[in-house]
């Protein structure tokens, strides 16, 4: 057991997976000798050699398209897209290819592939280094989409994703790489070394895909969140004194509908929080699911707190970012409703 940042735990996950299975390989832009711009692959090339961890050309459709072919061969490629904002040239290979190859070939070919990518804002990345495209993945049938919120889960979920026999999009909230972040950007950063979820076993373990975690139990309102927003929600609950139950979805597809439904039936209220843009964001799906399953248990309209439907603005990062004040306002509003 060691204290790890999310960067270290993700690296540890890849290392364990590569140790256990020669078919696991890692490649992407800058991931080889240098170890990745966020250093998540540092040391892997040295340990496993350049045939199992190497640099790729700057070509996302090539990275993902080649990974599809490798996975069809029998490897388990775990590739890195440098920022989620750069994934779009490879989107066709995800949406039209990786996701459908099992189905269209009736299991003759499969694509056990993981596409890792740093996601979300909070680091002054502007509109090309801050996006949260998870809804674009959740809309596709045939792939899984995972968004961890802490070092322990990140490692366990990543190993589970690598060992999964279907393609997995693995979105890493980059603002959480070095510590939990509750949206109070003007306060000192808490490192993972001071947080209990920074406690990560060195050895192999998995956290199952498709299972949510109850981050905080509560009786009055259910907050559905993932990634960075889990900590923003915690801060909002604490600061408003609302007895909120916070569910960290961890995997948005397949979604742990049973945990969500049980919580909302218990609390009768629901606030949905994500950093991505609002329209057709994953919150719209969550709201529909809660409406369909829990309408007669609801005591107030469901509220979404999300990024605005604008590009991520550089100078106005903190006005855009759905911080604890906005989430707190939503909690008060949902509690005031009759």
């Amino acid at each position, binding site marked *: 057991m060691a204290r790890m940042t999310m960067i270290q735990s993700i690296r540890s996950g890849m290392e364990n997976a590569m140790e256990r299975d020669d*078919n696991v*390989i890692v490649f992407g832009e800058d991931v080889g000798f240098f170890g990745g711009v966020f250093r998540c692959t540092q040391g892997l090339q040295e340990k496993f050699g350049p*045939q*199992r961890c190497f640099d*790729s*050309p700057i*070509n996302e*459709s*090539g990275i993902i*398209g*080649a*990974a*599809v*072919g*490798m996975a*069809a*061969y*029998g*490897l388990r490629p775990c590739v890195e897209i440098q920022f989620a904002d750069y994934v779009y*040239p490879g989107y*066709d*290979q995800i949406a*039209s*290819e990786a996701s459908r*190859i*099992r*189905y*269209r*070939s*009736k*299991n*003759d*070919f*499969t694509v056990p592939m993981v596409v890792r990518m740093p996601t979300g804002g909070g680091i002054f990345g502007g509109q090309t280094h801050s996006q949260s495209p998870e809804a674009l993945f959740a809309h596709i*049938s*045939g792939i*899984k989409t995972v968004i961890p919120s802490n070092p322990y889960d990140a490692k366990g979920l990543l190993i589970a994703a690598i060992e999964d*026999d*279907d393609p997995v999009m693995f979105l890493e909230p980059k603002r959480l790489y070095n510590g939990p972040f509750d949206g109070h950007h003007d306060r000192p950063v808490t490192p993972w070394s001071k947080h209990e979820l920074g406690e990560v076993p060195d050895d192999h373990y998995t956290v199952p895909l*498709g299972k949510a975690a109850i981050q905080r139990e509560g009786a009055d309102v259910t907050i559905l969140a993932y990634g960075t927003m889990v900590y923003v929600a915690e801060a909002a609950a604490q600061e408003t004194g609302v007895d909120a139950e916070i569910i960290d979805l961890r995997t948005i*597809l*397949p*979604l742990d*509908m*049973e945990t969500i439904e049980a919580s909302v039936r218990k609390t009768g209220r629901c606030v949905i929080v994500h950093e991505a843009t609002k329209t057709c964001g994953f919150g719209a799906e969550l709201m529909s699911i809660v409406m369909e399953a829990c309408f007669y248990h609801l005591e107030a309209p469901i509220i979404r707190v999300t990024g605005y439907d604008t590009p991520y603005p550089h100078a106005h990062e903190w006005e855009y970012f759905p911080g604890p004040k906005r989430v707190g306002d939503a909690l008060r509003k949902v509690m005031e409703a009759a």
Partner: protein
Amino acid sequence: MSPDKPTSDDQALSLYVPEPEFRPGDTPDFSDVPIPKAGAAPRPEIDVEAGDIRDLAYTIIRVLNRDGKAVGPWADLLSDDQLKVGLEDMLRVRAFDARMLMAQRQGKTSFYMQALGEEAIACAFQKALRPGDMNFPTYRQQGLLLSTDYPVVDMMNQIYSNAADPLKGRQLPIMYTSKENGFFTISGNLATQFIQGVGWAMASAIKGDTKIAASWIGDGSTAESDFHSALVFASTYRAPVVLNIVNNQWAISTFQGIARGKAATFASRGLGFGIPALRVDGNDYLAVYAVSKWAVERARAGHGPTLIEHVTYRVGGHSTSDDPSAYRPKEESNAWPLGDPIERLKNHLIANGVWSPAQHVQARERIEIEIAEAQKLAEKNGTLHDGPHSTPASMFDDVYKDMPLHLRRQRQEAGV
């Protein structure tokens, strides 16, 4: 220095949009298309550098001459018996296409695509591969499967989306899959497979195996970015892959000049990537085999990728949904200078004294009967129009390895 300013003398720019030479109503004349002499192109060693064989990207490698003789350094790789098998493979493709085209016209299925006039390419290429190698085909390489022992009836079952369809009615007709026969699942999206084949080949190299891959693409879809992705990855990692461009002149209604632009040939695209590039007469079974075999041996020996442009002509429509008379002269395929691949191989075998017109008619009739009988068997399993099909519940299977809760709920709602 004063900044350059607009003046009233400036010439207005205008956009250049290439046009094919002939449109409906024109008399096609390809006498200005240079067709190099058979036997003229040299045959380099397989470890050659791309820059040392630049000319092969601009010529057309041909083996069969006008008299049906095999000539030059690319000749004499196949025995007469092997050539007879090749001829029968092509006859099988043509008979299969004719039957399935008719079945579509009769309303037994929704869609069909023939390879009329292009049969030599896939049939000859398949013979250059070994079991375990993998093709990443487009929708017009049925010859790859029909040159293996893959059951013709199963191909028809797939086309009919019937109860015995190996793909459970999930795919458009002709989008076959067979891992066992080295045939990657056809997408229907263009060009995506080109880079996947490179990845598959890289995997073989990473594992230290001896298998190679072959990617396929049409002239039109070389314009897709995945074509360039494939070339850069194949070049960088020296992937054991053969990159095949089938230039059949037409991308639905768009002539090849729209994708090719100012470049002289599609093959020459490989040179900028340092990939040896060869242009071959795609209607010459012997030439296609020889060049394919060269590229396959090169890949297997660890010398890396080869780009092959197979020059041919799409005699039929793009698909059963297409009417070429709307955009090109009806006589164009007859005027096309490379002839018919089946006739050319037939004439070669006759010139060799091992085949006769009577034997040819016999073989063609035998194969047509085989195909007709297979069709009867397939139709016993149903057709798209009349069924039966796989069970509707099966549409929820295999989206994932294990069916997640939301799909289980949707299947329940569907009541199937």
